[in-house]
């Protein structure tokens, strides 16, 4: 009798692996599946490969992208993931983590949006983070490609792989360029995609609290780099927000700029509420709920991060400031 499978409320965490062809995704996947970590992982991979694993579920899938009929111009989802994850949700006790491998040229948005839009997926799964592999030796050839910038822009964790093939100076330059695109991503240098799995699984990439723990100075403005048109912007505002004004403002930002905003994360300070309101979003899709309580010694403030194209920090900060409850 399977006694621990009564009505589980807990959502299964999901990590998305992105990166160009040859960046080391398959190597990392094989490493994860063969490493002794005690997790039972369901892998959804895009190639018809045979990975010899006994205690993991490996599913081959063709990426199938379609538009959601919800009035949102940029809301595309992965139909194959909806099908497969719904099948997997019937067997929740047989795995405790899901890994999704995307094709090299894939835009991570449809994958991420699937977790915001489909009701059953939202109910059973939690997008833990997006891990992007970057080939340190070849990335400069693809640096200006739209796909490269999207994959870096979406990354919660970035593995700068094949660092043994480039000089320390090149690594340092690359890191700076990556940070200029996405100031919140955590960069690890790797060879043959070898990494402690604690660095890529259960990272809470869609949780701004946890993200700021690794980037404590992000919101103070020191990371306001911009490369070409892609960059990351951190906003903060002390005090409480006026809820109606805030909803109107964030709705307007996403309506107008949603197609350009890869990711958004935020912690909102609501009046008469002991708990923080936390939200996360991909393009125009936003999802949020009450999170942990404010600590007694914690500064009550609203913090928001946007990563995307053509972001104007001053305008966004002014918009947020206008939402302060007087």
């Amino acid at each position, binding site marked *: 009798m399977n006694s621990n499978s009564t*009505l589980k409320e807990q959502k299964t965490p999901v990590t998305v692996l992105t990166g160009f062809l040859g960046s080391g995704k398959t190597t990392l996947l094989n490493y994860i599946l063969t490493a002794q970590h005690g997790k039972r992982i369901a892998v959804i991979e895009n190639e018809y490969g045979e990975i010899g694993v006994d205690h993991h579920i490996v599913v081959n899938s063709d990426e199938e992208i379609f538009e959601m009929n919800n009035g949102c111009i940029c809301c595309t989802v992965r139909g194959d993931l909806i099908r497969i994850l719904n099948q997997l949700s019937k067997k929740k006790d047989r795995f405790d983590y899901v890994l999704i491998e995307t094709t090299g040229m894939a835009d991570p948005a449809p994958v991420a949006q699937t977790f915001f839009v489909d009701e059953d997926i939202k109910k059973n799964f939690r997008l833990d983070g997006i891990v992007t592999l970057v080939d340190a030796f070849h990335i400069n050839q693809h640096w200006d490609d739209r796909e490269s910038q999207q994959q870096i822009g979406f990354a919660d964790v970035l593995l700068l792989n094949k660092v043994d093939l480039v000089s320390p100076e090149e690594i340092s330059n690359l890191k700076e360029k990556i940070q200029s695109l996405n100031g919140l991503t955590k960069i690890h240098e790797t060879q043959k995609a070898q990494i402690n799995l604690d660095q890529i699984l259960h990272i809470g990439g869609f949780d701004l609290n946890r993200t700021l723990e690794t980037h404590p100075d992000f919101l103070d403005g020191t990371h306001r780099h911009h490369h070409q048109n892609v960059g990351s912007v951190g906003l903060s505002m002390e005090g409480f927000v006026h809820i109606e004004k805030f909803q109107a403002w964030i709705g307007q930002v996403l309506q107008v700029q949603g197609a350009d905003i890869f990711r958004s994360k935020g912690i909102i300070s609501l009046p008469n509420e002991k708990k923080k309101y936390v939200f996360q979003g991909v393009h125009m899709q936003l999802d949020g709920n009450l999170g942990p309580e404010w600590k007694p010694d914690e500064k009550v403030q609203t913090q928001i991060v946007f990563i995307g194209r053509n972001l104007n920090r001053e305008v966004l900060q002014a918009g947020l400031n206008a939402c302060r409850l007087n």
Partner: protein
Amino acid sequence: MSTELNPQQIPIIRPLWLSVTTEPVTHLEEAQNGESLIAGLADGTLRQLDLKSGETIFETSAHSMGILALSINSESNLVATTGEDNKIQIWDLIKKKSVLSYKAKSWIENAKWLGNKLFFSQGKNLFKWESGQTEPTLVTSWEHSISDFVLKNNSELAVCGYSRLSLYDLDTMEENQTFNWKGQLFKLCFSPNERFAVCASNDLTIHIWDLKRNKDLTMRGFVAKVRDLHFRPDGLYMANTSGSEVIIWDYMEPGPANKKPTVLGPLEKDVQFVRYQHNGKTLATFGEDGVILFWRPDLFGEKPLAIAGIRDQEISAALWTRNDQFVATGLQTGYIALYPTPEIKD
């Protein structure tokens, strides 16, 4: 059975038997002869149970990993299963052995016997297998994946997926008709008179095509995604789930448009399945909290007439037996249970 199951003092139906497995029960069907149940388990096991006693008659490791689809041929003793091992198997329940095994490139997520032909979908492709064939035949290939398919009028195959419902001639597989809707259509059924084609869509709607009047209709306003829908066998009503509510639509002439539906609930938890009895009298609803409720809206209005189930044991498969005497459920926790139909004087 817990007394807390029933805070409103509704009559409780107790199970006739419980069968225990070690794995979640993902599929449950009644065998063609009506004397046994066939269960598919999350570890790939296929189990045949005696309907009267619940004892296991036959068990085999049908797949090395979980079962994805299970379908029983209504005209023979053949059972088709597909699994996470990418295989499709056909089993002879009399000979107790596999009579066909075929390995695909990826998951076969849906398989159904339509007469003596077995149809199965693998992503964007639909295949057919008939007796005597060693390999299945590709029937059609779509731009997007195929979600569901059913037989219409014994002469047409209806197939739905993203943005499309298509009707094919069953013999020639030529496309007779296509209807479009910009959304993912994932669950398909026809009214028993085959006038209405009804699809649940991912966008919290039900889309209906009135084939007689060549009109389409969208039902909106559902509080949650419609997971299941089922017509009463006389075709006068259709029930669907939406979160913790069950909605019953009046399909009497001229159809459901502009009629106020009956809403049962909200119940305590989301409803997974709705099933009318074959004689159409009673509706059973199966909740993710393990609660089975029996309804007779014509006699009891919006109050259930009886309750059954095991609290907090998620129901993953459910059916009425064809003789209407029993309801069977498979649970995520590995139980298979059989309940008698509640007795009621009309």
